[in-house]
Structures are given as C-alpha cells and as structure tokens.
C-alpha cells in the first residue's frame, strides 16, 4: 500500500518524465525494506516537487516555458540554437509534448537531409516527395494520416506511426475546413481546430488564431516561435475567471543604430495559454503601435471566454465566446 502510495504521488504530479517514475519504481535493492523504499520514494517525490516548483516560479512553468519544444536545444525557454515550437497539446514531459517534439525533430531533419541529397545530385529540391502518395494508397488510414501530417514517403509514415505508438497517442484521420467563417481554419475529427478570426477590441479588430487540442492525439499543427527567451511571461485571471498564461515579445524592426522607436513603430507577438480538463487552448495574436502592450494582451485575454471554449470543445463555440471589450 505504501509503495503504491509512493508511486501514486509520482503519478499524480503528472508532468514528470515517465522515466523518473520508472526508475523510482524499480529502485528495489534485495535487502531494502518496503518501508525504507516507500520513504525513499516519498523523499524523491518531495525533492522533485520542490525542484519543479522552483522551476515553475523561475520560468512560468505552466506558460511558454512548459510548452516550448526546442529542436536541438535543451528544452528550456531561451535555450537551444535550433528551431523552436510551442506545444499545442500537453506540457513538458507529457506524451503529447514528447511525441510532438520527436516528430518535428524527425520531420525537419529528414526533409533537410533529402533536400540536401537532391541538391548534391543537381535534382529538383523536392522531387523526392511522392505527391500522389502511392506508398499509402493501399490503406485508407495510412493515406489519411499521410495527408494530414505532411508525410511524403514510406520512411516518414513509418516514423510517424512509431512515434504515436511509442507514446500511446492517436493520429488525426480527418481534417476539414470550418463550415463557415471569414478566415481559414482546420477542424479535425476529434474536435481539434485551428481558427483565425477578427477579435473586436477597443473600437478596432485584432487578427487572432486559436488552436484547440484535446489530449491523447499527436497534433498535426505546429506553431513555430522565434526567440522564446525574449518573451515576458505572467499568469493572469481573466474577467470571466479563466486562469491563463500570457507570453509577450516585442518584435524587432529595422531601425538605425541609437534610434529609439516610438510606440507606434513597435510590434508585438502575444501567446495566451489556457488548460482545460483534457484539452489545451492556445491563442496567438500580433499587433503594432501599442504603447501599453501588457494591457492589450490582458484585454485580449478578457475578450475571449476561454472557459466556455474549453467546456464546449467545438469550433462553433468561438463566435459566442467573443466578448466585446
């Protein structure tokens, strides 16, 4: 029972790499008593929890820091020289996060390798891709996932399926366009969606894109991010009572040396994260000319009913979730 309690503590922490749990569970010396093992597990859990909490305070653990996928980097906000992406489903250590990172890493490096090969042969860069997907035509499922995940040959298909299997995740099998709306979007069979719309704000409109991803499936969408270490991050409770994490970055512009741009010349990139019971919601918005961008970011957060979106879980809820501010 106590052993199970120790393991239960580990598992309930939720965001710990499964490997830690495995190691703790397997730490069985032949001469160690059950009691000592349980105490040891609890001590490890407490130590890890304190470390995690410290890290959370230092880098907004549940915000961008916990969702940053750095290819070729150390996985922390601001670290790594490679490309960076925002995890649209799951925080660091979760199956969705790890699988997405692995898939992006593979996809990018594989495509680069193939293109370089083509270049070396003097061939067209992307001729290696089977645009008709003959490798997947025999199987409806393979064809569907190949189309959705941008898979162009058998090697990519195998890797995709292996990664999903390793982390116990489903793959999207159907992607469609929203039934209505003024901007482009994509809707998946499990309700996941990406949707762009104009959010009314202060007698004007901001173009925002919202990503909704239920857990348990490898996201097909990716959200690249540049210079993650330059984002200011903070937690915020919206007017409608949703707890969100905001990340805001001033985007560089070309100006002469020693020139201090006016507020109207600045542009900002904002990410807002919200977790629900079984799904993640990510909002991205960019704007320029705002002298108080932190206020704008919070106003954007207040202008959308994140709770309603997470409870409803469908793209049709977006229109009703917009609160004029």
């Amino acid at each position, binding site marked *: 029972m106590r052993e199970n309690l120790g393991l239960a503590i580990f598992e309930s922490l939720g965001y710990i790499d499964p490997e830690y749990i495995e190691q703790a569970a397997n730490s069985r010396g032949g001469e160690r008593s059950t009691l000592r093992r349980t105490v040891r597990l609890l001590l490890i859990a407490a130590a890890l929890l304190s470390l995690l909490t410290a890290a959370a305070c230092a880098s907004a653990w549940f915000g961008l820091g916990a969702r940053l996928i750095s290819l070729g980097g150390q996985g922390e906000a601001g670290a790594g020289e490679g*490309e960076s992406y925002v995890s649209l489903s799951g925080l660091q250590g979760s199956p969705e996060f790890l699988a997405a990172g692995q898939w992006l890493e593979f996809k990018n490096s594989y495509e680069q390798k193939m293109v370089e090969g083509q270049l070396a042969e003097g061939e*067209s*860069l*992307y001729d290696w*891709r089977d*645009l*008709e*997907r003959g490798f997947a035509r025999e199987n409806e499922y393979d064809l569907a996932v190949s*189309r959705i995940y*941008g898979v*162009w040959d058998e090697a990519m298909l195998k890797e995709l399926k292996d990664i999903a299997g390793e982390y116990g995740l489903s793959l999207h099998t159907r*992607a*469609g*366009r*929203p*039934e*209505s*709306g*003024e*901007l*482009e979007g994509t809707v998946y069979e499990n309700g996941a969606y990406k949707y762009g719309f104009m959010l*009314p704000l202060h*007698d004007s409109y901001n173009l925002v894109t919202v990503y909704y991803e239920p857990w348990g499936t490898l996201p097909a969408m990716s959200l*690249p991010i*540049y*210079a993650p270490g330059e984002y200011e991050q903070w937690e915020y409770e919206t007017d409608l009572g949703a707890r969100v994490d905001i990340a805001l970055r001033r985007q*560089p512009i070309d100006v002469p040396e020693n020139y201090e741009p006016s507020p109207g010349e600045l542009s900002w990139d904002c990410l807002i994260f919200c977790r629900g019971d079984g799904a993640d919601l990510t909002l991205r918005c960019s704007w320029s000319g705002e002298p108080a961008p932190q206020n704008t970011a919070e106003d954007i957060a207040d202008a959308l009913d994140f709770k309603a979106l997470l409870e409803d879980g469908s793209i*049709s809820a977006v*229109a*009703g979730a*917009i609160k*004029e501010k």
Partner: protein
Amino acid sequence: MKKAFLIFGAALLLAFSEASCLEAGETVEVSCPGPSATAAFDEAQVKTAAPYTAIEAAGESAALEFENHEENITFRFDTVDIEEIPETMPVLRMRPKVIDSDWARTMAEAIFGDNTLYEYSEELNRAEIGEKIAEYEDALREEAIKEALGEDASREEIAAYTKAIEEQLDFYSSAYEYARDEVEPVECLWTFWPSTHYAQSSWDYAGRDTGYTDRLPYGATVELCAQVTMDGLPYRFNVNNREAEDFRNHSMYALLMPPMYPGTPDYTPWMVENGVYSGREPGAEEVEAVEEKAREMIEAMNIGDWELDARVESGRYAYLPQEGMGYGIMPEDLYTSYDIVVDCKRVYEGVTMTKHPMLMDMRSTRPGASNYYFEELELRYCADGRLQNLTYWSPHELLESTDSGVIELDIGDIKSILMDWTAENIQLRDSLSPEAELLDVEVEIFSIELGLSRIKLDDTDFLLIPTLTLPGMYTLEYSLSGETGSDTRGSEASPVDILVIDLRDGSVIELGNP
C-alpha cells in the same frame, strides 16, 4: 461629447416649442417630448437662440452665409430651398434581408438574361500546380532567399519568409494529389460556400467545403460566386451573406472582370479594344435608353422601387502605365473615356431614401449609428450601353409601416442649430484631435434634402424615419503642438452629412460615422 450634442439637440426642441414665449438669453428647463427610438435625451438647461433674421420663405433660392456664436465656423449654403414638408410621413420598421439562392438566381437572370453562369473558379490544373510547386521550390533556394531579402537579413526575417513559402509549397503539394488534369467550367450550382472556397490560395481541391442552398448557417459568412460572359464582356457575379453575430450584411455585385489587373500593362489596351473605354460621348437618347434598360432590369431583379437618373460621366486614363500621371504626364494629356452612370435612390411608399455616406464602423454602438451599409444600388454602363458594374448593398424587408406627424422646420431653425456649433462638433466627427485648437472652419452645404434615413431600433431591426439632411463638405484649420494644419472632409462628388434632423421631433441625430 455625447452629452454636449444632446444638449444642443434639446436646444432645437426649445426653438420649436418655446421660442415664441421667450426672450433672447432666457434660461429654461427643457425636456424631450418623448423618447426617441435612437437615444434617450437628458433633461437639460438650455439657452434660447437669439432671434434670427427672417429668411426667405421655402421655395425661393437664396445663398446664405453666417458664423457660429464662437465666430470660428462659417457656414455657406448653396441653396436654402427646402422641399415642402408634408404633415405626415411614413416611419418604416425594417430588417436586413438574406439574399437566398432563389433570389440570387432571379437577380442574375435579370442582369445577364439567357447567358449561362459558371462557378467562379481559380482552380489550377495539375500541370499548373506542378509549376507552382517548382516556383516555390526555387524560392527556397539559398541564393533566391538572399536575392529576395538581401545579404543582411536577420535570422528571424529569413525564418518568417521561409515559413511563408513553405506553407504555400505544402498547400500546393497537398493539392497535387486531387488536382484535375483539365479544369472544365462547372455550371453555377447556386450554392453558398465559405468565403475561402473560391480563393486560389485556399481552393478546396480535396472537396471538403460544406455548401448551402437552403438555410444559411447562423453566425457565418457565405458567398456565391459565378462567372459569365455577356455581350462579349466577362463578368463576375457575387452574392455575400454575412450572418455573423456582431452584425448582418448582405450584398450582390456584378462586375466587369478583365483577364488582367488594373495597373498592369495590358489592362488599359484591353479596356480600349473591348470598347469599355470609349472616347465617344453618348447622346441624350442613348442615355435615356440606358435609364429605361436599367429600370426594366431593376424591376425584374425584384429589389423594390428606385428613383433613377442617368447621366454621362467622363474619366481620364493613360494607355500604358508609364504614360500615366505618375510619370509626369498632365491630366489634360490623358485620354478621355465616357460612361453612363445611373444614380439610384431607394423609394419606400413614395418617399425617397436619403443617400448618406457609407458607414465604416460596422460594429458601432453609438446612438443613431446604423452599424452597416445603407441600402444602395450603383449602376455604371459603357458608352455603348453595355453594363460595366452593378453593386447592390444591404437589402431590407419591410416589417411595419406607420404614419408619423412631422414638425415644421425652416431655414431659420437650421441656422439656429448651426450657430450653436462649437469645436466639439468637429471633434465629434473625429476631424480634430482633442489636444488641437480649432482655428477656423469653412462649411459648405450643397442642399437640404427631405427623405427617409435609417436608424437603429434594436439588435435586429431598423427604422426608416423622416429626416432633413444637409450634405456638404468642410475645411478646418487647427493648431497642434505649435504647428498649424488643415483638413478637408467631403466633396461635391462625395459629400459628408453636415446635419441630419429627425423630423418626428426635431432632434439632431449623428447618422454618419466620424
């Protein structure tokens, strides 16, 4: 600001109801005679206007010029003619009307006759998609990126540029599988689709879009696009229904669609070769014939009653872009082309709707704001009588009609209102920054129009109410941070609303967006 406006609106009420009993400068308390459908007015203490010089009776033309009390705004009237105001006028309750498939088809047949309409398409065939893929692949080569962005481009710039190209490459790569070897035109399906359905960069090669023929989806914007050739000219026919929660708007247009964009070298030669640009000025009989043709077409479109007035309009063009004014060519050295324009005014129950400037703030919640486009029809024909462009905005259905008593009003009353204008009235129109000092304003009023104007009743319906509208233009001079500046709003071709008076109670309403 709003309160100031309401206060001088109340001053107008005072002028109507109390002026005969009061002496200049006397202060009275005034309350509104009843709630306006557009806004609630506060009780306000107002001063009577000073007695005005008697003006010629309605019906006699006379120019008028005067200044406001602060002597920084000058008003000039081109005419003080006011059409005789009847004792009662209709007040109509209206609701924006969806253009459904059947109605769209009726209008298309009225415009294009027996000519066949085809689904508008920017679909590429497989070979063309292959070319697009090759084009984007080439754009991703290192040397191409350097050429596009320069040697000093930052990593972030390169990343963003590359990402945008990769997205297009992915789109066309995914489309290749579904692409047809030959793209044959499809006869118009009379189906509404999401707006993205028709664009080349989002063309639905995989056939996933949901189309609607009967009930349009709530909260959505959907479009029906078709292409057609008539009398040797290509057109695009488009119907757009915006049924989103924030505002509803519906429109139809039939536009000449040359095979190349304006400003490209072949555009004007095409327009000339196809007779759209013509240096021949049409005669009076031709103009009359076009007006009659328009009248028959409008009747067949089933869009209600309209007052029409055809006229000739000339424009100038350069044959080639490098011969245009941007290259130092003077306007008088350009070619002249003649069109026949048919001015259209909507008529309800025998009363003409006043044409107001198109609203820009579609989601405005200001009292008196109408939130979206007024019902409008614009027609333009070539000199030889062939249609060029037709646009039809914001159809409405009539729900209820009642008769309302209207107040008596003359030029003296109007003068009284305008003399009370201050810099705040200019700021209200967003023409003057609150920090700026107004130095001088010159206002020219072109006419005084009696008609019906639309105001918002509630979240779903509008009212057409009897109004007096003063269209015009104004130029203001101001001082800001030690520097002087000037700005002009409106013109004879596109006047702004200087003043709009609700004839039910004499209140002033701010119809136009600033």
